[in-house]
């Protein structure tokens, strides 16, 4: 069977099945198996694409090239580790009485459907379908955010829904404008939203229209990426949703939204020829980075803080892609990968920590290293990794971004330096006493599923010291494609 | 390094050992005369030393080996200082071992040991003396070094022998910088040798003493060594001052005639110098300990002025 079809079908079918089946004993296993299956299919698909080059599926509706296949693999991988993590985590939540069986069913089903929408958004060749999938991704996660049905989680979900809904509406307007511009070149063949066709004629697209379209798309999808000042939904949703959801929101949804912007940027760049899109992204990136860094220092809730850290990194990545060129794009892609691995690892550790301490308030979490050294070290190393400490890989991409900025946009470096310094001071200052220090809590008897944390961190560590050549080739190709 | 040179070197050391107490005695005598007191005999310091060497050492219970060891080190340091300062001749085999900067180091080493020894017994006066000594030390050292810098710049050398040779035997040049340096050096020597107005070697008044406070617990041969070392230090400073600022008469080679002349010149200069020292001590009052920074600050100022004058007026000669 076609690997691509499998990759998309497994989450869709299992999501529907989980919704239909209800909370049975085998449901968690099905969830896990489905994620595993998706991952295996995507891994094989990746191998196939790497070996045989880009391909279409379902006519020209889906298109897998070296840019998105690596996001597909990453998405499936994080999806898998999140399922592994969420098994014991959700069981504990249920034991604590925070969730009912019905909600667990909702969670599993929606999780798989969310994976489906992500994968569809990544692989579609049609910018309209991309929009549809992005909207669907919002819809599948909005109920997950309010899973606990607390006042705060409802509020968070409502804001998430409204803000992202409005944002995505703007993206639709942008898509319409894009279609409008494309139709003038490609004619009414129905191919005018197909990226593979668009990219061929990107130089002929009307610059004025493309500029407006890009603005709408950037503001629209940028809302989902969490670009300041459109980011306001993000911390609330991350903090109030269940931790696995925070992990995938941070690790995957933001990436996919950014991916959508990147696809459009290629077209805008081709049409406008003046670095307009790049400057806009750089501006947004810097603003986001700075704003998020200053938000960090006043956080009290641990998940909220790491949500802001995600915003910060999205800003950095946006900045990198804004700079453009093979090096910066390479760095941006690398940073996206590493950020999703690291951030989801952190959320796993945070989830366990918060569960053990029974709170998300950082002042009440102390001495994790005594309560559970594995969680403590996981959180510590994850934090250090996300802060860009070598030898973790995040440093590698930050190294490239900073040095590239130094070379081409030296004016931006003081801002970058300030923001990174402030972020470091804020995050590390909060995490250190949580991990170290005295605590009155006792060690808990049962061990958590902490393997995903260390698998992620090991990967991140490896990328800091050694990026396998095939990965490099692949990144290079993707970076070149982005222009 | 010739045999005769070595001999003259040892002779210079022996002369220092012999003359140092005499100088102290001479200063004391002059001072007594100036103060209308009956003067002790000129040889009184020798009697003192002899008496002290005879006495048993009374060692406090808490004394550590460092306490016993320190007087010898101090004595050795002062001896070394006397060995490298050209008292009679500039051709000293030991002189290359230490230049003026190292000389400051030697005094510093002695100071460190005596201050540590003062703290060793653990009495209130000992530590008090130790800290005051170190205080004077860090105030005096920069000034002394600036003085040395001034002279060193004139001769393009920090070696004492070379400086003296340059100053004594070069063309006669009026060096106003040397006047400043000389004043600064005088100030520093008063402080370093525990003299009025910084310290009073004749008092055991608790609140004012510095040097005496440090050696309160010493007795017998240890005390004798320390007193002798103090005399040597005075001698060394005097000789250094004389060598730097009144270098005439110091022999360059090791001819017997030159050295004889040098000895007589030295004794004459020391006699005058000692009398002047007594005079200055008499007409000044001891200042409070916290006026000492001002006193030595002035010395430092003079030294820096000397340096600047040297750089401004004399450098492009």
């Amino acid at each position, binding site marked *: 069977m076609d690997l691509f079809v499998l990759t998309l079908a497994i989450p869709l079918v299992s999501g529907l099945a989980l919704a239909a089946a209800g909370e049975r004993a085998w449901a968690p296993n099905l969830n896990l198996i489905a994620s595993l299956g998706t991952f295996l299919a995507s891994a094989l698909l990746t191998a196939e694409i790497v070996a045989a080059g880009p391909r279409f599926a379902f006519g020209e509706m889906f298109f897998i090239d070296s840019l998105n296949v690596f996001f597909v693999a990453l998405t499936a991988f994080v999806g898998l580790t999140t399922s592994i993590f969420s098994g014991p985590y959700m069981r504990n939540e249920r034991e604590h009485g925070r969730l009912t069986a019905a909600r667990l069913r909702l969670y599993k089903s929606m999780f798989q459907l969310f994976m489906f929408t992500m994968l569809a958004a990544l692989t579609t060749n049609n910018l309209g379908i991309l929009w549809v999938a992005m909207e669907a991704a919002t819809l599948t996660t909005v109920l997950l955010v309010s899973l606990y049905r607390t006042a705060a989680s409802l509020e968070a979900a409502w804001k998430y829904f409204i803000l992202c809904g409005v944002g995505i509406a703007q993206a639709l307007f942008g898509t319409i404008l894009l279609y409008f511009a494309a139709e003038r070149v490609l004619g009414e063949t129905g191919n005018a939203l197909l990226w593979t066709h668009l990219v061929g004629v990107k130089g002929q697209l009307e610059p004025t229209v493309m500029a407006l379209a890009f603005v709408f798309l950037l503001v629209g999808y940028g809302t989902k990426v969490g670009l300041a000042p459109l980011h306001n939904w993000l*911390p609330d949703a991350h903090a109030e949703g269940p931790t696995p959801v925070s992990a995938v929101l941070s690790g995957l949804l933001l990436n996919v939204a950014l991916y959508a912007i990147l696809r459009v940027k290629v077209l805008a760049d081709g049409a406008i020829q003046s670095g307009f899109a790049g400057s806009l992204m750089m501006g947004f990136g810097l603003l986001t980075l700075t704003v998020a860094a200053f938000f960090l220092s006043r956080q009290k809730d641990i998940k909220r803080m790491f949500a802001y850290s995600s915003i910060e990194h999205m800003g950095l990545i946006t900045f990198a892609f804004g700079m453009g060129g093979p090096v910066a794009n390479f760095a941006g892609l690398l940073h996206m990968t590493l950020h999703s691995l690291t951030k989801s690892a952190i959320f796993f550790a945070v989830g366990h920590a918060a569960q053990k301490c029974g709170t998300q308030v950082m002042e009440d979490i102390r001495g994790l290293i005594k309560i559970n050294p594995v969680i403590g070290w996981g959180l510590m190393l994850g934090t250090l990794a996300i802060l860009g400490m070598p030898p973790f890989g995040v440093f590698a991409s930050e190294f490239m971004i900073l040095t590239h900025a*130094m070379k081409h946009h030296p004016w931006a470096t003081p801002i970058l330096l300030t923001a990174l310094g402030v972020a470091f001071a804020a995050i590390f*200052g909060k995490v250190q006493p949580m991990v170290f220090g005295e605590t009155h809590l006792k060690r808990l008897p049962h061990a958590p599923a902490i393997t995903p944390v260390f698998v992620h961190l090991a990967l991140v560590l490896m990328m800091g010291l050694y990026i396998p050549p095939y990965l490099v080739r692949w990144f290079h190709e993707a970076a070149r494609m982005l222009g | 390094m010739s045999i005769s040179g070595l001999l003259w070197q040892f002779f210079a050391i022996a002369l220092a050992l012999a003359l140092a107490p005499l100088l102290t005695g001479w200063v004391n005598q002059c001072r007594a005369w100036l103060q209308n007191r009956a003067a002790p005999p000129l040889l009184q310091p020798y009697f003192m030393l002899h008496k002290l060497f005879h006495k048993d050492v009374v060692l406090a219970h808490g004394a550590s080996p*460092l306490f016993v060891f320190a007087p010898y080190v101090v004595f050795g340091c002062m001896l070394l200082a006397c060995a490298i300062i050209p008292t009679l001749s500039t051709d000293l085999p030991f002189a*290359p071992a230490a230049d003026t*900067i190292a000389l400051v180091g030697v005094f510093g080493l002695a100071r460190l040991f005596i201050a540590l020894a003062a703290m060793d017994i*653990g009495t209130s006066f000992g530590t008090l003396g130790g800290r005051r000594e170190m205080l004077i*030390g860090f105030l005096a050292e920069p000034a002394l070094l600036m003085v040395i810098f001034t002279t*060193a710049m004139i001769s393009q050398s920090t070696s004492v022998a070379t400086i003296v040779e340059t100053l004594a035997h070069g063309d006669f040049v009026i060096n106003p910088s040397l006047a400043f340096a000389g004043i600064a050096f005088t100030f520093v020597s008063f402080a370093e040798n525990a003299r009025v107005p910084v310290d009073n070697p004749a008092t055991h008044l608790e609140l004012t003493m510095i040097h005496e406070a440090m050696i309160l617990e010493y007795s017998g041969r240890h005390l004798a060594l320390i007193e002798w070392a103090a005399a040597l230090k005075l001698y060394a400073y005097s000789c250094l001052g004389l060598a730097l600022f009144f270098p005439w008469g110091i022999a360059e080679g090791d001819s017997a005639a030159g050295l004889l002349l040098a000895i007589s010149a030295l004794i004459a200069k020391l006699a005058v110098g000692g009398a002047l020292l007594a005079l200055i001590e008499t007409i000044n009052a001891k200042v409070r300990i916290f006026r000492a920074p001002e006193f030595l600050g002035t010395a430092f100022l003079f030294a820096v002025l000397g340096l600047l004058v040297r750089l401004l007026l004399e450098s492009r000669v």
Partner: protein
Amino acid sequence: MFALLPIDVLLIAAGTWLALGLAGLAAPRNFRYISKVLFPLGAAVAVLAGLTSLSFLGSGAETAVLAVGLPGLPFHLRLDNLAAVFVLLLGFAAAGISVFAAGYFRKGEGAAPGLLCLQYHFFLAAMLLVLLADDAYAFMVAWEGMALSSFFLVTTDHRHAEIRRAGYLYLLIAHVGAIAILLCFGLMASGSGDYTFAGMRAQSLPPFWASAAWLLALLGFGAKAGLLPVHVWLPEAHPAAPSPVSAMMSGVMLKTAIYGLLRVSFDLLGEPLWWWGVVAMAVGLATALFGVLYSTVQSDMKRLLAYSSIENIGLIAVALGLTLLFHAYRMAALAALAMTALLYHCLAHAGFKSLLFLCTGSVLHATKERSLGRLGGLIHRMPWVAWLALAGVIAGAGLPPLSGFVSEWLLLQGFLFSPGLPHPWLNMVVPVAAAVVALVAALAGFAMVKFYGIVFLGRMREEALKDAHDAGRWERAGLVWLAVLTFLLGVLPTTVIRLIDAATRQLLGAGLADKVREHGWWLLAPISPDRASYAPLVFLAVIAAAVLLGRQLVHRLYHGRLRRSPAWDCGYVFQGPRAQDTAEGFSQPIRRIFEPMFRMERHFPTVRDEQPYYSVKVEDHFWNWLYLPLARFADGISRLIIRLQGGRIAIYLLYSFLTLIVLLLVARP
């Protein structure tokens, strides 16, 4: 058979350290295995590294490339003479410290020994890699690895909030410094985009950008070295760490920062500008004076030593400034003189400061006490530690005939010739700077007397000190090793200078070795014996002869009788150990004379006090002048910015709306 190059040996050494660290994790709680097997092995590796670089010194550079790192930028490594001097320092200092550590870490104290072993050996390996790195990425990875591993070591005892705070401050400043270094590399590579050091060497920057890069380097490396005003972490972190770690940080890690500065200033940037020298000298003088003044007023023995490290780093920076000046004006011989002073002081400080920190470790173990006010008289209980510490104290006070004096002597010699500078202002101001150096040296003597006198001499201020025990065998061995190094560095300056001359020659194209070699191995005369000379062996021999002869003569001519009695103390009857000076009392003159330099909080007792007490707390002005305003500023900004997140969805929508409208109105391609 293929021959192992020195660089290979060093790489193997680094690898072995990493392996030893991981081996510690294999049995993290097996105490004997870790302390008596792994640490001594680590010491052996350190000796090997030291010997390797010893044999290497003087040969041409060797390079290697490791197959890790970034794509297109694998780890480039290079062993040249500059690196070799610092590897020598690292190896020999680390050997002593590791041996000491084998006896130092005790059961049941703080973290699991395996973890400590891991962090410690990673720290060593990272430092070695810093010295060997030959491209920006490898350097940064090693540099931050060094910061990270030492951070974990500093917070070994993380139960105390102040230790955590110290660690936090340390890592924060280290990280900011690292970003500055990264930007410096970025600047240096900006033309070619080649991030290897070879690439940076090959290109020359315009003066403006070269200066920017140099200033960034000064900031970045200064943050690690402890230069003003980014020194604040140092007096917090060094006391917080376990003593071997303090020794390693102070003795070795600070020197890696100096290494970095040298590398950037002389190797990578090409021709330095003269005013860099002025900046370095000004910063160095300020740092040295600040460090020594604060060192004299401390009441915690490790803090005292930490500030003393700041002082020494300041002196090294002064030497750097002098070198830069001379080099910029092409006075090669003098530049070589100043550079030799610099390198010599690095070596000397590594020896004596490690020694002193280790001594405080032994004291800490024996007494559980760090506060000077509760120590005293330990020379009676801990003679080994006390006598070995004396060597460190003499060297630390910069007195002959030990190591600290040689470098200060060389430095002052350098100053003496600064009037030759062809610049009307400089040749006047620079010699005066020598006076500050002299003041610093004298004050260092004050601090050292205070340290030694209060800890080891006098009477025991607390009853509990009677149970203090001397250092164990391992600790003693480590101390002896470092003391011997300090002694050798003190009495064999010509030999050492001939060793480090290769580095001077590499950086400046001129060296002292030829001159030095002319006058025999015992006489140090960098220019000519007429101008200046120093022969520590003769020096030592005269003093030793005087001591021995004096003793023999006195005993022979008179007698050697000795009686014991209570101390006299001017006849005062009450003589408790409390009557001795406290640490605060001892430094009272300094506080008084240099009052404006300190920020003091004092409490004076009054007549009516029920329980009268006196207390004084000395704080760093820089907190109030720089750090607190910065923190307040950042806090103020973040207070403003968080208003963005006011909770109202309407406002959020408004942001989105306004962003859109603004962009639509301004977006013109």
